[in-house]
């Protein structure tokens, strides 16, 4: 018998392997032995990528509608209620204090301590505010006062996965105190990798602000600037766990979950996979906060009954800085117009943002394009929108990052030719809206620009996206700028304190002199009196 020829099998074999590998995309992310496994996607290159020209949706600003919406929103501060007492009326904040956070007073830092180390060129933050005390200065003042500050870092895929922000957070927390990764979404409709936090979720349906058409009508105006919303019924669960990727992230002392439910629902919050507590969430449209104080390494939310819409959780703690990463793929910044102003304001009242960073523009550049006036106008609207949602925050616009593209003829990479132009339009937008501005491209140039980033392995070979190593450099540069501002403020204060101290010393010296002089006069009088009396006395004795 002739043996069978298996050669044609290479075809079926390849086909079966392809089907199998595509099918692997069905395996959801999971964790095993402390390693997190992500969803794999072999067809990713065929899907619309970040640089895809066809943005999923283009929102336009409607500041007028925004004003109306915010005006109708009750400005009264939501009342805090303890969950143990019967909540009536429905509380906005449910508190669970397992172990009260120790109130440590931080030592006042000196200008020498916060001044940037090394002699690297500092690309300064340009402040275009016209107020007597600018909003950026107010932010720096809070840092100088050693108060708690919270930063919202809004960006596109450039900062996805906590690129840049994780190192910025690390540097600020190491310097100024504070712990924890900050806000992390509940569930996202695609796989992401983030080493600063481990998030595992199941049972949710997640929606993105970039895809309003696939978002249910009732949720469309309910987005927070995080850009992702997750809806879940009983059984839906998410676990946020700290990692030891950064020194300040391994544990924290406060945790919050931001959620709401239209009708009353019950959820379970579990700490460190052991301690747990049930909360009944009163049915209401207002965003609710479950606030926990305890030493937290892992934080789980589970829906027990009813339907819950969850934004995410925040892991934070200690006195100091919290940095929230809000990255939305393919977003040029306009997605903020798709977020609910009321929601943003409600959450701002809970979290209290002091600085909102807007990092966008990478996706709008076309080779050689030099005019971006339409984008500048949009950016002005974004800034206005952010200002109204976060009234107490300073706004910092980041210029677009350096980007090179491949010359189709020669196959070599060259500057896209529109970075400088877009940067100047972004600066102009900051100028006309009186907010702060920082040029990312200039900062990258101090390291040699994008080719050097690629050469050093700090950026992807697409000459567009930096990686973690590159993000660290940009974060360092931004931290240098912030530290320079802070050091200047502290130096001013130290000089002022010194002036006051000197003044006091001078007064004291004067007083002493006066006392001396008066005492001298008094002494002479006294002496003369004694002298005048003494002979008499002596005489008396005699």
């Amino acid at each position, binding site marked *: 018998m002739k043996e*069978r*020829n298996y050669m044609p099998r290479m075809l079926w074999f*390849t086909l079966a392997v392809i089907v199998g590998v595509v099918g692997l995309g069905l395996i959801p992310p999971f964790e095993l032995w402390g390693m997190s496994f992500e969803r794999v996607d072999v067809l990713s*290159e*065929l899907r619309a990528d970040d640089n895809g020209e066809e943005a999923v949706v283009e929102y336009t600003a409607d500041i007028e509608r925004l004003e109306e919406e915010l005006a109708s929103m009750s400005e009264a501060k939501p009342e805090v209620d303890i969950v143990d007492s019967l909540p009536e009326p429905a509380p906005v904040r449910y508190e669970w204090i397992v172990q009260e956070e120790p109130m440590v007073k931080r030592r006042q830092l000196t200008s020498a301590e916060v001044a940037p180390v090394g002699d690297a060129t500092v690309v300064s933050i340009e402040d275009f505010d016209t107020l007597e005390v600018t909003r950026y200065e107010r932010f720096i003042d809070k840092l100088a006062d050693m108060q708690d500050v919270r930063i919202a870092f809004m960006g596109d895929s450039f900062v996805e996965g906590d690129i840049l922000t994780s190192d910025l957070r690390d540097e600020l927390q190491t310097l100024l105190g504070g712990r924890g990764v900050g806000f992390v979404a509940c569930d996202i409709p695609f796989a992401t990798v983030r080493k600063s936090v481990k998030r595992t979720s199941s049972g949710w349906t997640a929606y993105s602000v970039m895809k309003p058409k696939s978002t249910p009508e009732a949720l469309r105006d309910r987005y927070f600037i995080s850009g992702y919303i997750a809806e879940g019924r009983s059984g839906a669960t998410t676990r946020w766990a700290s990692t030891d990727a950064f020194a300040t992230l391994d544990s924290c002392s406060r945790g919050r979950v931001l959620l709401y439910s239209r009708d009353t629902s019950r959820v379970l919050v579990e700490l460190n996979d052991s301690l747990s507590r049930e909360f009944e969430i009163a049915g209401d449209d207002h965003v609710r906060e479950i606030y926990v104080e305890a030493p937290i390494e892992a934080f789980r939310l589970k829906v027990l009954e009813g339907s819950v819409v969850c934004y995410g959780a925040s892991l934070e703690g200690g006195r100091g800085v919290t940095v929230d990463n809000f990255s939305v793929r393919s977003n040029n910044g306009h997605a903020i117009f798709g977020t609910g102003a009321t929601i943003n304001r409600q959450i701002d009242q809970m979290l209290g943002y002091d600085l909102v960073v807007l990092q966008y523009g990478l996706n709008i550049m076309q080779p050689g394009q030099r005019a971006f006036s339409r984008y500048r106008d949009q950016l002005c609207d974004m800034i206005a929108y952010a200002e109204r949602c976060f009234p107490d925050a300073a706004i910092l616009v980041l210029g677009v990052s350096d980007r090179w593209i*491949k010359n189709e003829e020669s196959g070599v990479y060259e500057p896209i030719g529109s970075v400088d132009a877009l940067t100047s339009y972004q600066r102009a937008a900051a100028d006309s809206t009186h907010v702060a501005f920082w040029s990312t491209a200039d900062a990258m140039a101090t390291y040699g620009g994008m080719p050097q980033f690629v050469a050093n392995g700090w950026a992807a070979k*697409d000459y567009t996206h930096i990686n973690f190593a590159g993000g660290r450099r940009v974060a360092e540069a931004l931290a240098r700028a912030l530290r320079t501002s802070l050091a200047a403020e502290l130096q001013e204060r130290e000089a002022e304190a010194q002036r006051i101290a000197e003044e006091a010393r001078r007064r004291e010296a004067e007083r002493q002199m006066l006392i001396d002089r008066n005492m001298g006069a008094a002494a002479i009088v006294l002496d003369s009196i004694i002298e005048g009396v003494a002979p008499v006395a002596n005489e008396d004795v005699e």
Partner: protein
Amino acid sequence: MWSKMETLKFDSALWERVASLLEYDAAAPLTLTTGFFLFAFLIFGVGYVVLHRRVTLRNIYVVLFSLYFYYKLSGIYVLLLLFVALSDYLIGRRVARRRERGRGTRGWVALSVVINVAILVYFKATDFFVGLVNDLYGSGTLQWESVVVPAGVSFFVFQSIAYVVDIARGTIAPLRRFTDYLFLLSFFPKMFLGPLVKAREFIPQIEERGKVVTSEDMGRAVTLIAGGLVKYAIIAKALGVLFVAPAFDGEMGEGGLVALMAIYGFTLQIYCDFSGYSDIAVGVALMMGFRLPDNFDAPYKSATITEFWRRWHISLSSWLRDYLYISLGGNRRGRMRTYLNLFLTMLLGGLWHGVGLTFIAWGALHGVALALHKVWLEVVPKAKRVGSEMKLAWRIPAVLLTFHVVAFGWLLFTAEDMAQVGDMLRRIVVNFSFAEIDALVHGSGVAMVLMVVGYAMHALPKSVDMGVQRMVTRLGFVGQCIVVVVVIWMVMQCDMMLAAECGAGGGLPMYAAF
């Protein structure tokens, strides 16, 4: 579940993306381990299976696909490949005709060698010489923009030289068709990193009518591909990114133990990287019914340096032996000349990897070691050539000694400059402390596990390899598919983890640089 996967929209934008994927992209060269190759291989397979009995059509079909593969890998340099093929095809015919008529062939062989070597030198050494001149006479003396080296250039150049020399020596007859010669040079599985094929062994396979793959072949191919992926895309890649690169860069402190482990790590990494990719190439070719020679045979089990070169990059060392060592006179010109020839062969072999002091030193080390071993064999009558002839008590220290010569050779090979070599050696001698074990286990636990697993796999006897192959053969179609899919899943997870950890992803095999 499906809702969580992003759906693929079949719109015009999709076709634009497909079209752009089909074009050459310097940032994403095509290798056998890309997802693109998997899809391309499926489409290629349809035509191949249909045509495999029609020799001429099949060969033209494979050549066209190979040329496209090379274009996706190296862009415009596909023209260079065509040029080399054409020039040596014509020279080969001329040499054969002159041989038939009993006339000298030296001039034509020399022409072929000069053309091929000139190409190699142009792409590999110009940078070095321009740098040298500019160092000597001030920068800017020579204006030169460094060129990208065409992928696999030395592999096709070497095979082309061998083809002409073989015709001149009369071991093969020249190929009649140009496309057949192009097939020999450009066959896509081995295009990039070898193994180098011998014309004598490969030509019959090109001319064979109908391709036959047995059940055992299929099992062996799957084992080679899956094992190759584990070695190349998991062990080598992760070990390099997580441990070897940072340890060499001094990011893990100045300790001696770390330096030593980094050398051991690189030794395993370069083996896994290179042999893993070679195995995949052999496996892919085998599925198509082509038998490529084995390129590696557990080289670190060698008990002598001579044995090492029979087990490491076998196709290159036998090329060096057949076309360089023998052309220099081999061992037929007296003892001293034999040693010198060995030394020169290895020195040139070192130079081939890159023009620079470290590569010269690496080649010299191996040349001296080989010559010394030859001397040892002649001086000590009981000395053995290979480990299998030795007693165990001799064999173990011999393997350890050989391993260390090779490992420290790799230090020369991978170091940026001689200063780094000196620094690493100084660390091992002066700064050695077992106290670092703790930091290694805690700081680089995963890398240490990979190293143990990698060396353990390497140490297994060959019978285990054969057993695994038989097992995979018995798994049948479904089982084999599952094995490969699971390995691919592991590779993708590993890639994502490394990308998240260090921002490193993708990349080419290390040997792509040579």
